[in-house]
């Protein structure tokens, strides 16, 4: 095995001990992710893990790969620069529901529609963890948080429906309580060409006492066998539908046809013509 590739998931773990509370959902992703790296035989030297700010955004510290822990909400912007500068790299971006869909929410549509070649994993705990318990974009209305002492007044966003509408070409949902399924989904997402998104429901037992492992366990179900992953409106409808009280894990949507951003760029390079410095100067010679 080449240096940088490991046989077992746990060998991908860095020396840095996770800073998460006992019982934090993010541990589930960490394990699943490391196992998926081993499954895929990923080389950490060619891997860049990019994140924003939040409990969840500490993720890259705990893996042996190259990593970048940026500023709040901008993980995708930085990740896109990494990938475009070196398309050889395996690029995965990480963040929380606040990082990704509040302050960072303006960037997601554009990564999706560009079909930027990378994977984005959001750890959704319906709360701001690191800043100690304020309303997040996925907080249930009416929930009391430190900034909403009389109950959260906002309707929650629906990350899956968002990225589907934005044009992400691979969209899945996973649950921290089911790391085995998650492991497979991560592998699928990383192998996907183009922009892949995984919404990980990852409870925060410390600050969100309402959305717990137990309550989610009740609600989670695999997507039905007959779910058509090529039907986007169907996938959106599934994501929006909360009448059943169920949450579905699995692959909502997959599109292998749409060219990726790098594909398009490569196409353009061909029409741009060869580099000739004197020819460029000629334009400016009077």
């Amino acid at each position, binding site marked *: 095995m080449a240096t940088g590739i490991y046989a077992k998931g746990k060998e991908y773990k860095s020396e840095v001990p996770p800073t998460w509370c006992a019982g934090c959902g993010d541990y589930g992703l960490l394990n699943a992710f490391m196992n998926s790296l081993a499954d895929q035989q990923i080389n950490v030297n*060619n891997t860049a893990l990019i994140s924003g700010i939040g409990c969840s955004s500490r993720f890259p510290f705990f893996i042996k790969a190259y990593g970048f822990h940026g500023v709040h909400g901008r993980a995708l*912007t*930085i990740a896109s620069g*990494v990938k*475009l500068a070196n398309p050889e790299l395996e690029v995965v971006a990480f963040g929380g529901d606040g990082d990704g869909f509040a302050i960072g929410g303006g960037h997601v549509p554009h990564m999706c529609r560009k079909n930027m070649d990378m994977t984005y994993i959001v750890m959704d705990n319906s709360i701001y963890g690191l800043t100690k318990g304020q309303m997040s974009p996925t907080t249930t209305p009416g929930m009391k948080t430190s900034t909403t002492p009389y109950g959260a007044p906002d309707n929650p966003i629906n990350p899956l429906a968002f990225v589907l509408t934005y044009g992400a070409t691979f969209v899945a949902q996973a649950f921290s309580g089911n790391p085995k399924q998650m492991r497979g989904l991560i592998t699928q997402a990383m192998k996907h060409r183009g922009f892949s998104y995984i919404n990980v429901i990852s409870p925060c037992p410390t600050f969100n006492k309402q959305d717990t492992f137990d309550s989610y366990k009740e609600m989670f179900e695999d997507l039905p066998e007959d779910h058509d992953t090529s039907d986007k409106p169907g996938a959106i409808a599934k994501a929006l539908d909360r009448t059943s009280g169920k949450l579905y894990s699995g692959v909502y949507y997959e599109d292998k046809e749409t060219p990726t951003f790098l594909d398009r760029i490569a196409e353009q390079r061909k029409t741009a013509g060869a*580099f000739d410095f004197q020819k460029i100067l000629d334009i400016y010679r009077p």
Partner: protein
Amino acid sequence: MGHKSDLCIRIGGEGGEGIISSGDILAQAAAKAGLEVLTFKTFPAEIRGGYAMYQIRMSSEKILSEGDGFQVLVVFNKEALDNNINKLKAGNVLIWDGPEGGDINELPEVPEGVIVYNLPMSKLAKVDLGVYRSKNMVCMGALSELFNIPVDRLKEIINNRFGKKGQDIVDLNYKALQLGIDYVKENHQGISNPYNVVAQEQNKDVIIMSGNDAVGLGALMAGCNFFACYPITPATEIAYWVAKHLVKKGGTVVQTEDEISSIGAVVGASFAGAKAMTGTSGPGLSLMTEILGLGVMVEAPLVICDVQRGGPSTGLPTKHEQSDLFLACYGGHGDFPRIVLSAENVADCVDLTIHAFNLAEHYQTPVILLTDGSLGFRTETFEAPDINKVKVVNRKMYNPDTDGEFLRYKFTEDNISPTAIPGMEGCAHMQTGLEHNEKGSPNYGPVFHTKNTEKRFNKIANAEDFFESSHSDIEEGATVGVVTWGSTQGSVREAVQQAREAGVKVSAFYPKLVWPFPMKAFNEFLKTVDKILVPEVNYQGQLAEIIKTKEIGKEIIKYNIYGGLPFEPQEIAKKIKEVQ
């Protein structure tokens, strides 16, 4: 004032009347004729309506600035007349189309001694040619005939420009030119024309280019291979340029959804090893300051070009101002340093963009290059740069044989830590905007914050030694030294010439590096003068304020204008005389 051989023609009218394109053609023709050229344009901030102006200064000698007004005024409408007529002096020329293209014999009021040449270009175009929008070409023909601008050159350029659109268009333009030429020949023959330019042989390889294009060219020459940006006036042309040309060299150019995304992508690209850049104007730079701090914290080499415009807020998007120096030097939360450069002219835009990349790579830190709207838009002739002679600096990479254990933020003697980029074996590491230890792990203890803060400041403290970061022009016996930055430097150079010609002794200091200010050179300079004069196109005197923090022990005289226009050299020359 200016040189004897100078001719400066100003054309004013409504945006969209072809003023910009005809000005471009005239400028190119002059350059083709071997003249030095420097143009000056102002556009309205609106798409439609509003006053546009194009000024072409041509000379047999190097041109340093927009100059002191103009000698020939062409007005396409009343607003242009009203805005400019009082700037004409005795002996200057007004080209007169009649009131709003009406009766040319209905003369406007002009300052005493101003010569009026009738030229019914609206009528000639509309009636004689039948194509009103060719008015500008009629005007070009007349100007070439009046001021000796070789008409063959004009035709060549028209052919190059419009050839693609078909021979019809070319012929129409030729015809329009000829109408103008003929009119002058018939009506103004024998008039003793006070101005004319003499075409000359050029044996230099000259190009004529705008400041924004020049920044693109500099980036390409410096090895820039990643450019991200969001459109904004007056900086967008940099993006046009690199979008067209960088890709040919394998570079990547991406238009992002906003400026925060641009600077984020630039930081990411730099992390991945690219020479990365963004171009913007003030509002964009304001939005970028959070991530600018991140760039400093992770020690990312990257370049930001800020093409300044009038502020604050949306302000005066197409007007001239140098008011982002404070933002560039002091913007962003926390106490952190950055390298700031400022360009004087178009050639400088090439050179300093190259220096910006080299400084960024060498010191592993963000570099901000300040230009401005007039400089970005104005075209200038200068010697074509040679890509083979460019010194390109690359960041110091980690070498396992000599550097011991890889520590991204290792403390070293020169405060520069050998680095590694993703893809390199055995150097996987974390970069974070949190304060960190040598390895890159978060650490908030007093030791690392203290040492790293010092490292970040100390590593660039001697940036002035890295390149020719300033230029002193010392005249023996001068008591006053003029100091300024950005394109105002050109006006100062010309003002200094004027002052000296008038017998006033004066020295001048031209910093290319404005932060950290080149104090070694400046202190040497200061020994030769008693006081300094700092002309700036802003209210507070941003450079003057920064110089004050150096406690130079000499009188600092601010001279500020803030009306959206650059200085005229004569204004500065007058001030020099006043304060000497």
